[in-house]
């Protein structure tokens, strides 16, 4: 079972108390980009087997969204941080 400590309210939440929000750091491009770039933005995902930067929401708690670095095979949580912060673990894998 996935357990993540919410960086906002500080509570340890189980996966049932959280909502998954997919890959992190996908920025919406300008509307003038090519159809290919727009398709990429909307649909294409890195989907790695291993280290993944992703978004979660403390939906049964304080309701805040935050970012997580997680291994998609072992489900180990490597880092959790607020949107306005920078993650050490995320910098290292990037």
């Amino acid at each position, binding site marked *: 079972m996935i357990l993540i400590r919410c960086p906002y309210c500080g509570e340890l939440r189980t996966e049932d108390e959280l909502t998954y929000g997919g890959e992190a750091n996908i920025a919406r491009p300008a509307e003038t980009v090519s159809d290919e770039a727009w398709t990429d933005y909307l649909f294409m995902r890195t989907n790695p087997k291993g280290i993944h930067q992703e978004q979660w929401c403390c939906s049964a708690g304080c309701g805040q969204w935050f970012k997580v670095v997680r291994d*998609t095979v072992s489900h180990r949580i490597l880092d959790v941080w607020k949107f306005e912060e920078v993650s050490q673990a995320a910098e290292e894998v990037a």
Partner: protein
Amino acid sequence: MKIRQYSLRALALCALQGHRDWPPAWRTPQPKSSYDVVIVGGGGHGLATAFYLAKHHGVTRIALLEKGWIGGGNTGRNTTNVRSDYLFPESAAIYDLALRLYEDLARELNFNIMLSQRGWLTLIHNQHQMELAAHKLNWLKCNGVDGEIIDRAVVRGMLPHFNMGRDARNPVLGAFLQRRGGTIRHDAVAWGYARAADRLGVDIIQNCEVVGFEKSADKITSVHTTHGRIHCERVGMAVAGQSTALAAMAGFRLPLTTHTLQAMVSEPIRPVLNHVVISPATGVYVNQTQKGELVMGGMLDLYQSYAQRGNFPTIEKVLSAVVEMFPSFGQLRLMRHWGGAVDIVPDSSPILGPTPVRNLFINCGWGTGGFKAIPAGGLMLAHSLATGSTHPMAQPFGLDRFRSNRLVDEGAAAGIAH
């Protein structure tokens, strides 16, 4: 004398010899240095592709490469529900073709796939679901696919152990029923296609992982494997949850994410449940195997995962829903639980046909429900590999649909559940 064709006569003859004369169902060949077609992935879709490519298109220099053992991916982990009650004409055409092919497959492959068309029921718990079912039925009629709505009394007759009492959390108004729906023995589909393809000359190479592609311009010239390099003219790929990694090796991206879908079985008991039943209130479904185990599954784990194992939150959700539906099943013990890595596409429809690499064709994105589609998926990929063009039925499912924004949104329309 080695007996190759399975029959009652063969069974009797071999019994007299103490069953010593059965030959292996397929060979264990060493890979050759070159093939016309290399198929990556020995699940149902890859194996069916190999079979139809050899049978319908006369291609014989085919290698099928499987990193583990055939059927060891999602094909051997799935809950084997088959049906064709999809909404859009494009999907109905594909899934009903698959079901029709399954209906004749045991004869075609000379392998008993244990097709059991025991009826697939989607329960109707409220007026809204009743209207959705009526809407779906109209679509099915237009698509020429069978289906009917049955009332509460008929459901009670079909599911005698179902909790129809006043205390039931989800009352039942009726059900949507597809009588041609049911189950098939999953391993038999993999093994039947493998044996038939092998007899047509396909080299099925297990424990052989594809680790890279060698390209010249925008074509693959050879495939790098854990057994060395293999030259080839065309490549077909049917690796389900591993599709992103294979596409990355070939140099393009796919609109899919990999998630865990779990299932579990109880200890075996005498026949108590003659149909497959799913509740849209919980997404949980259950049927009984020929061995007597109750097979149960539920919703997909919503976060990305390649874990291929189960976990307790989902087990709890599935079991509590099953016991709510069938209180007497609460006496049973759980025997096994497991997970598979499924490939989820935004519109819950498969991706079939060409890729940005000119001689690489794909079959993926079946997500939580591609077992029922195996014969059709194999036919489509075989067509692409043989002709270089897309079968008309596969056209709506091309990778280009994401750019042209012509999604086939069965996820929203039919509320896909396996």
